[in-house]
């Protein structure tokens, strides 16, 4: 009778590729050379996109921008596991996911330049608009997953967010509902150790985020978020489970925000440079390159080619974004409601 154990849980961490580029063969996902090169190219493209965004911002051609530097593997690796028909609910720092799924880069630049037309997802993609209010999109993903089940679609839903988001009430309400309704949703948390100036250990007293899933009755797992194979493998497994009625999974990608929080931030005010230097060693691209070198999938010529292609694609995207015609003033009215009220119509006439 007295003190009895009524339940227990162990939280796992998955790591396949180490910083030196050595992989655990047993866990390596079934990706062929072409797949691996594609992954590498997406990583480079994401980083190139990101670097250009920072440069454009400095020149005043973009607004406040949150860099993805260092987090590319968590984004590309997870998005690569998705089907086109899956639904994605992003936060604001997953441009690597957008790029992997083929979301037009010029739209991303337009958006970050302060033009909502950048969030008009092309048909054929089910990527929801970037969500600025941290964590508040999590219940949407759960609802969409419930809707997919209800319709009998085999679509899964993926929801991205950061470590900071796990402190929000909507994280809790969403995950709890996902558990209760066994919704086909995969939560991908990029634990980049910081929420602006708040370090992980001030965000929660729990030593991992993955363990939070236990409280919702489903599986949570931590992966090395700079290990693209671990991210890909965990996401694919979770997606398959979701499609087969196995319910939700929480994946904590253990990674690092190398850059400032956004271009409006100065991380040197609150963060030791050694920490950043340590994490630079664990760079996700470097790591994959080392692996590919071992397997003869990478050489200097290939690298040049990949870099050139990425630069060209980014040049083209910047050009398209910046040559888009200025939005008309009346645009501010045209998407508030399906139909304008008489008052809105009157107001609309005032601007043009």
């Amino acid at each position, binding site marked *: 009778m007295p003190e009895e154990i009524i339940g227990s849980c162990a939280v796992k961490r998955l790591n396949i590729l180490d910083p030196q580029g050595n992989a655990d063969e047993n866990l390596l996902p079934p990706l062929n050379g072409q797949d691996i090169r594609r992954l590498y190219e997406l990583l480079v493209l994401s980083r190139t996109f990101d670097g250009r965004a920072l440069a454009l911002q400095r020149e005043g051609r973009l607004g406040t921008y949150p860099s993805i530097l260092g987090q590319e593997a968590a984004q590309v690796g997870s998005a690569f596991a998705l089907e086109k028909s899956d*639904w994605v*609910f992003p936060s604001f720092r997953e441009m690597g996911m957008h790029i992997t799924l083929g979301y037009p880069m010029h739209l991303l630049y337009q958006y970050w330049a302060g033009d*909502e*037309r950048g*969030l*008009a*997802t092309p048909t054929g993609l089910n990527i*929801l*608009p970037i969500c600025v*209010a941290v964590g*508040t*999109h*999590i*219940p*949407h*993903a*759960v*609802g*969409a*997953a*419930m*809707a*997919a*089940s*209800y*319709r009998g679609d085999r679509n899964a839903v993926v929801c991205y967010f950061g470590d900071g988001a796990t402190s929000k*009430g*909507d994280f809790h*309400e*969403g995950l*709890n*509902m996902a558990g*209760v*309704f066994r919704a086909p949703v995969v939560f991908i948390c990029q634990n980049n150790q910081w929420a602006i100036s708040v370090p992980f250990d001030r965000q929660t007293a729990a030593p991992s985020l993955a363990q939070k899933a236990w409280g919702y009755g489903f599986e949570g797992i931590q992966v090395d978020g700079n290990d693209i194979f671990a991210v890909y493998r965990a996401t694919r497994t979770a997606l398959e489970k979701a499609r087969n009625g196995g319910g939700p999974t929480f994946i904590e990608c253990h990674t690092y925000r190398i850059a400032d929080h956004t271009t409006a931030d100065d991380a040197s005010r609150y963060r030791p440079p050694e920490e950043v230097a340590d994490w630079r060693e664990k760079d996700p691209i470097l790591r994959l390159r080392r692996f590919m070198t071992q397997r003869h999938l990478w050489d200097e010529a290939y690298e040049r080619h990949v870099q050139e292609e990425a630069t060209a694609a980014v040049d083209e995207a910047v050009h398209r974004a910046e040559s888009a015609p200025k939005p008309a003033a009346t645009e501010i009215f*045209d*998407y*508030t*409601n*399906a139909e304008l*009220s*008489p*008052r*809105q119509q009157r107001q609309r006439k005032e601007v043009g």
Partner: protein
Amino acid sequence: MPQMNMVQALNLALRQEMARDPDVLLLGEDVGRDGGVFRISEGLQEEFGVARVIDTPLAESGIVGAALGMSLYGLRPVAEIQFMGFIYAAFDQLCSHAARMRSRSRGRFTCPLVVRTPYGAGIKAPELHEESTEALFCHMPGIKVVIPSGPYSAKGLLTAAIRDPDPVIFLEPTRLYRLIREEVPAEEYTVPLGKAKCAREGGDVTVIAWGSMVERTLKATEGYRVDLLDLQTISPFDEEAILTSARKTGRVVIVQEAAETCGFGAELAATIAARAILHLRAPILRVAGFDVTMPLPKLEDYYIPSVERIRKALDEVLKY
């Protein structure tokens, strides 16, 4: 035509819309097995199954957020918040998301979503069970706010709300749920959103009310020659009907259950003061709840606008 109370009319509207469109589903606390604490969804889980009438965990932000996600996916969810006093927890979902998703995505994603909730005082219920803070939601471009005042409008407006392409907050006056019975067509029909109904015609004063206050204002205006406008939708509201009547009568009384300051009556007065002031002969009066915390049952009757207070305002404007 059958006689119904508002509970029956709302239940029928839900049943018919669910039968008509498989994308319509219900979710909320106790809406399934229990049929809702006011029995609005009584029998619907039996009829349509647990996948379509969903009892949720106790989480208002999650309920509205999940309903919103369903609507993004293409369904037409009708979420219930058990009492309006608990909708504040979903305020962020409504204001930051439901109201903005169409705009944010330039029309690519929309939220054909209805959030129903009982509102209003006069039922001697505990704290937060008698709120009437409808004005808050009228300051959120992108969201509609609909308030029936009787069984007929309840059924037609709820049907219209469910079919509307945008998010609608649908407020049901709890005090009137079983108070009024009237003829309600058994068939489907809609009452258009955004249009006021003239509940009484007369030429001396324009009286404007909505939802829970319509019944009381009808009583109070007996023996007076007034245009009584029942707004039915308060966002967007029927400016034309109001201005036409105000220009005609030159006297306006607004009856609002909510606390006076920054209630929806303020918008009505401001609209008239901007666009019909030259026709007015008297001050625009608001008869409203007081600017106090909504009292518990023992004192609530002092709070809710009474027939006497309404008549006093009528008499006052008629002096001019």
